[in-house]
């Protein structure tokens, strides 16, 4: 469950989010649509705590995971290291088994010792997804998960995200691709000029 109440954020003189209220029900997928510059990314970044809102509150039940538009994998670490670094610090003991399970579920177990630069866009996407899932998020925020992917990879992303959602992970997905959002979301919210329309 994720509840956003009257969220506003101002960058300089621009009001990027203007009193956004939104509730995302547990285990549902909500799509965030709208033109670029409409505030989609900023809303996700506020929920994750990467931006501090000027006004309003975000209330989330459980861990929040974030998938960046440009993945932001750690380039000096292998795929496996990218996955296990944070959970290992948190004192998790079963991180290696979990990482291997995730990699094979996502069909990239043969890439576990590869460095991110050597991967295709679709593979990087899956590593980014796996890295976020390693933290056992109850809520997953995805920023433009289909950008830069070809049609068949988009189809794969849809089925991957759906299967993760089937396990009870709540999702908020920002995308400019309305067709993609229609195929995946339970509900689509339009964000335009910082307001929900």
């Amino acid at each position: 469950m994720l509840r956003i109440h009257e969220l506003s954020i101002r960058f300089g003189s621009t009001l990027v989010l203007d009193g956004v209220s939104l509730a995302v029900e547990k285990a549902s997928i909500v799509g965030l649509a709208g033109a670029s510059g409409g505030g989609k990314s900023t809303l996700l970044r506020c929920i994750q705590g990467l931006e501090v809102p000027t006004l309003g509150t975000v209330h989330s039940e459980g861990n929040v995971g974030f998938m960046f538009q440009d993945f932001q994998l750690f380039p000096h670490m292998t795929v496996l290291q990218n996955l296990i670094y944070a959970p290992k610090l948190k004192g998790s003991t079963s991180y290696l088994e979990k990482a291997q399970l995730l990699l094979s579920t996502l069909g990239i177990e043969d890439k576990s010792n590869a460095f991110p630069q050597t991967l295709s866009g679709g593979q990087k996407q899956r590593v980014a997804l796996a890295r976020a899932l390693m933290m056992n998020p109850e809520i997953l925020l995805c920023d433009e998960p289909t950008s830069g992917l070809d049609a068949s990879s988009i189809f794969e992303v849809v089925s991957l995200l759906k299967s993760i959602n089937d396990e009870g992970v709540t999702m908020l997905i920002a995308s400019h691709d309305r067709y993609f959002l229609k195929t995946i979301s339970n509900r689509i919210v339009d964000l335009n000029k910082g307001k929900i329309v």
Partner: protein
Amino acid sequence: MGNVISEMLFIGQGLLVTLELLFGGLGIGITFGVLFSILRYKGIASILIQRLISLLRGTPLILQLSIVYFSTPAFLGFKLSILSAGILTFGLNSSAYIAEILRSGIENLNKGQFEAAKALDIPTFYMWKDIVLPQVLKNILPAMQSEVIALLKETALISTIGGLDVMRSAQMVSAEKFTYFLPLCIAGAYYYSLVLLIETLGKNLERRGSYA
């Protein structure tokens, strides 16, 4: 021929002091350089550090060395040894340059890397140690290599306060034998050999640091 070898051996004894100054200076330079750049990035004592860096880069090194060596007795009541004065001065001077190199490296790193670390709940200390600095160090390796070479050459200034380094040893031979060319060429050969060694090491590090 025997002459050349004995001169080489004598001047070579100065290598110990030269290397002590280089490694000691690097130790202090890197420690304070990292500290200064992180503090500046985080906006802690930023103006103070900025001024200090400006001062260290903006005055002659030979002047800084003289101040540290000749005027500490008046302020601190005790005399620093030539070697400690050298290590302290070269180290602090180098830290200013290293801090600037690191700052540009940190500022050029994709901000998303900091955000990814935050999103994964990685504590600040580990973010700097394992995510930020390894990537920054790789990017600044060429500039750092130049700084190490510059530091090595600057250690020759220790001869002005009487440190028995390679340079001073060469000058001593010159003074005794009334000949300059050979002893100075020998000193030059020692310095240049060390520089070639640093360059080889740097190339190896660059190769090892390139992922994939």
